[in-house]
């Protein structure tokens, strides 16, 4: 699935040693990229071997907590046959030599699995060639052990460090001739490998965007209109300039792109607290524009009204669902909904910028630096060549940092203030100026025949539009499960106009659809008297690959056998169906395929007499292919994703009122806390498929598995998120 063509370039590193650059156009289908981007991604890596044997591998992608800064170098080091204890990792800047510097869509594994190993294998081959030349023996007789080249027949050996300089002058191997290791011989890939950054993290070293400090730096805050896209009419900014510590305060006239520079007032001071305190004295008159209908309450009423009519468009229709409902033994209708969500990266958005003499230098915790640089270029009117972006570790990504609004704000403020500035948002800024996970409404109807087979399914999906087009990350795929496995099926779509900006959030679409579809399917199983595992088997049928229909983000299709495999594994591990629980305790199952990963999860939950939910335990079973690259990180990511889903389900929602977000902090949007966090047991089903990513696919099943567990425990079906808004006291 990945292009084999590549281009390797070699040069002497400064100070001696070999610097291997690989430009590897990856032709993996853009359709598999989730929200990260639809263009084919080209890859590039650095490998530097110092004469003393220290190997520096450059990680080209942004690190936001997903562990890619370890994963990519592990792939290179494996095929190089490096001694991992001699490897250090460097973070790349945004650099034209490294296309595809993005963290999104769980794409780093599928896109880099082969090319990064080829980079390492090419390096190994050049080191062997150098040794063979020194010894005057055929390269074919040489082999490697960690960090050394060996010639067994003569008993000679040379370390990588000793060979590095000569290796750099060896011809660059044709990628077609590269011999990759047999996975059975992997020494680094597949080993639980500790993150090399942790010692710095636990000692509080400055390493995040918020920690950046440059000489002469001032601190900035930026007040925008809480009604997204509102225009600034006038302000008392002149008064603000007189406040203690304030170095500059000025109005900003922005554009209309909600992901770009917007209207607002910037306050720049000697320290951040002073800037933010001065900001509290701002009086601003805004022109909010038309906010009619821009409230959560209005959206819900509109959705119900729309559900009574025909959908505005039909996304998919198979057979004749209306006729099939008449033949079904059990017919069920249900309405599901979920709210807007903020990403709530624990590190609020921030960026440091220095604009001077037409040059722009930026330190940004971003998932997607290249579009940020382009935004700065077009907004400030500086050529892309005058912009330097350093990628700084981000305190969480979750898709929020695929947008770069904070980057263009920092650059603009630096330019006007005439000094380097660190812009830092408050938590309230962050929650009220997000690219929100869009809310949505699903009006379902389905029919099951007397054999427990789902024969007819309909969803009228009410979602949101922005400027007439479907809002970002608010669309549905015609391949959404259970499409392709139900004879009579219709997906219809209607749209409510929305002002607030939307965007991808970890497992975009799936994080919401998983809850709605998998909860409703569980309802159907119970209504037909079929065990949910059996009901899933009935839908999935025989193991086979169902190709994707023509659609955006088209992927390699859906493998019913892999889905069934993880369902059976999680059922076995959780003891599904083997225990009887007292009233108030139950298990729920859900399963979901996203970002090329197949996941099934079981949640055991207890609801007490006061209606309080305790999540007792979560079991996760995943199939992400033939190789878990770093089992230590894989477990962490899967646990975190499942708990992220539990967190959203229990306590998170944003309310829109008059076009503005009501909530502003963690007192009203409730993140999961230690006392609520259950044990999470993770199992991987190793299958004969190329390895795929793990940043997202373990999240979607967690929410419906919990909802289904609450139903099993209490008989009460929860059809809207979050659960904190439901009174379960009577149910338990």
């Amino acid at each position, binding site marked *: 699935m990945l292009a084999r063509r590549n281009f390797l370039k070699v040069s002497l590193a400064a100070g001696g040693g070999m610097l291997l650059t690989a430009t590897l156009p990856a032709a993996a289908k853009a359709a598999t990229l989730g929200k990260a981007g639809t263009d084919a991604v080209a890859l590039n890596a650095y490998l530097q071997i110092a004469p003393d044997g220290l190997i520096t591998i450059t990680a080209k992608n942004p690190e936001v907590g997903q562990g890619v800064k370890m994963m990519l170098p592990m792939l290179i080091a494996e095929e190089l046959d490096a001694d991992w204890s001699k490897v250090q990792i460097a973070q790349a800047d945004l650099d034209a030599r490294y296309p595809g510097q993005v963290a999104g869509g769980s794409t780093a594994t599928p896109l880099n699995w082969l090319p990064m190993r080829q980079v390492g294998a090419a390096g190994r081959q050049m080191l062997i060639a150098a040794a063979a030349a020194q010894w005057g023996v055929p390269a074919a007789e040489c082999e490697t052990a960690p960090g050394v080249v060996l010639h067994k027949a003569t008993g000679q050996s040379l370390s990588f460090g000793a060979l590095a300089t000569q290796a750099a002058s060896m011809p660059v191997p044709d990628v077609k001739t590269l011999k990759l290791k047999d996975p059975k011989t992997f020494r680094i890939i597949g080993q639980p490998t500790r993150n090399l950054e*942790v010692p710095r993290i636990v000692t*509080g070293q400055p390493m995040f965007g918020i920690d950046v400090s440059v000489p002469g730096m001032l601190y900035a805050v930026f007040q925008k209109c809480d009604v997204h896209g509102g225009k600034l009419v006038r302000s008392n900014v002149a008064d603000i300039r007189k406040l203690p510590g304030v170095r500059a305060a000025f109005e900003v006239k922005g554009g209309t792109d909600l992901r770009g520079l917007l209207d607002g007032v910037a306050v720049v001071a000697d*320290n951040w607290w*002073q800037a933010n305190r001065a900001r509290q004295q*701002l*009086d601003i008159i805004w022109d909010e524009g038309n906010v009619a209908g821009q409230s959560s309450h209005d959206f819900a009423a509109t959705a119900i009204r729309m559900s009574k009519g025909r959908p505005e468009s039909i996304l998919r229709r198979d057979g004749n669902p209306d006729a099939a409902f008449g033949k079904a033994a059990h017919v069920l209708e249900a309405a599901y909904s979920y709210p807007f969500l903020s990403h709530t990266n*624990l590190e*609020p958005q921030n960026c440091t910028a220095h604009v001077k003499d037409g040059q722009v230098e930026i330190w940004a915790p971003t998932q997607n630096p290249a579009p940020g640089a382009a935004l700065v270029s077009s907004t400030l009117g500086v050529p892309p060549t005058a912009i330097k972006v350093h990628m700084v570790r981000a305190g969480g990504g979750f898709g929020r940092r695929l947008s770069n609004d904070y980057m263009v704000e920092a650059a603009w403020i630096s330019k006007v203030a005439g000094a380097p500035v660190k812009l830092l948002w408050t938590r309230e800024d962050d929650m009220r100026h997000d690219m929100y996970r869009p809310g949505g409404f699903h009006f379902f109807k389905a029919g099951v025949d007397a054999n427990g087979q789902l024969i007819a399914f309909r969803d009228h999906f009410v979602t949101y539009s922005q400027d007439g087009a479907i809002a970002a990350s608010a669309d549905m795929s015609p391949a959404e499960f259970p499409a392709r496995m139900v004879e009579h099926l219709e997906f219809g779509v209607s749209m409510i106009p929305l002002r607030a900006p939307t965007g991808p959030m970890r497992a975009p679409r799936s994080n919401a659809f998983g809850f709605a579809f998998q909860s409703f399917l569980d309802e159907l199983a119970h209504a037909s008297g079929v065990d949910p595992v059996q009901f899933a088997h009935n839908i999935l049928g025989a193991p086979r690959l169902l190709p994707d229909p023509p659609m955006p983000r088209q992927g390699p299709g859906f493998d019913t056998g892999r889905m069934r495999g993880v369902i059976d594994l999680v059922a076995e591990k959780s003891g599904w169906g083997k225990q009887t629980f007292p009233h108030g305790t139950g298990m729920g199952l859900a399963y979901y395929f996203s970002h090329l990963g197949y996941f099934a999860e079981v949640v055991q939950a207890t609801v007490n007499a006061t209606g309080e939910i305790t999540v007792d335990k979560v079991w996760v079973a995943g199939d992400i292919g033939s190789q878990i690259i770093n089992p230590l990180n894989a477990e962490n990511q899967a*646990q*975190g994703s499942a708990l992220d889903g539990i967190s959203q389900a229990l306590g998170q929602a944003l309310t829109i009122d008059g076009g503005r977000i009501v909530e502003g902090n963690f007192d009203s949007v409730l993140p999961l806390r230690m006392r609520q966090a259950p044990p999470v047991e993770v199992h991987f089903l190793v299958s004969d498929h190329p390895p795929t990513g793990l940043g997202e696919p373990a999240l979607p099943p967690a929410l419906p598995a919990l909802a289904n567990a609450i139903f099993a425990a209490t008989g009460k079906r929860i059809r809207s998120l979050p659960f904190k808004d439901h009174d379960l006291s009577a149910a338990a």
Partner: protein
Amino acid sequence: MLIGKTDRVEFCGTMKYSVEINGAKRTVDIDGETPLLWVLRDTLDLKGTKFGCGAAQCGACTVHMNGHPIRACQTPIASVGDARITTIEAIGDSKVGKHVQEAWIELDVPQCGYCQAGQIMSATALLTRNPAPTDHDINVAMSGNVCRCATYTRIRAAIKHAAKAGSI
């Protein structure tokens, strides 16, 4: 149309404050209402203590005052007085703090890592007063610290790991 902020705050001038941070006396000339968090980060260049909410909701800014965990975002510098302040940069100087840091490394706890300074400060305070905490003790002591990446499973395991290391 909307009129913006209306709450008025009093601006006092700056004053000299002498505080003990990580065993050393530090003098800052600053508005007394400035939260300790910003004095640490912006004035004293100790950036390990993090800002997450500014409202005592997330625990990212946790430091020790005389060994007790406090939220630096809610602690005006004028209120610190003679108290001993310890931050993540120096928590490893104590035996318990060192065990906690080692357990975090051993179990590979962090994902993004942003919350972990605060987690370690709360965990160290817990283990200092209670060397063998139960799950319930951990819940009580640690629920003020949000981990957005939800590394709770490993934080819990690492606290138990550090407790074991401390008992040997």
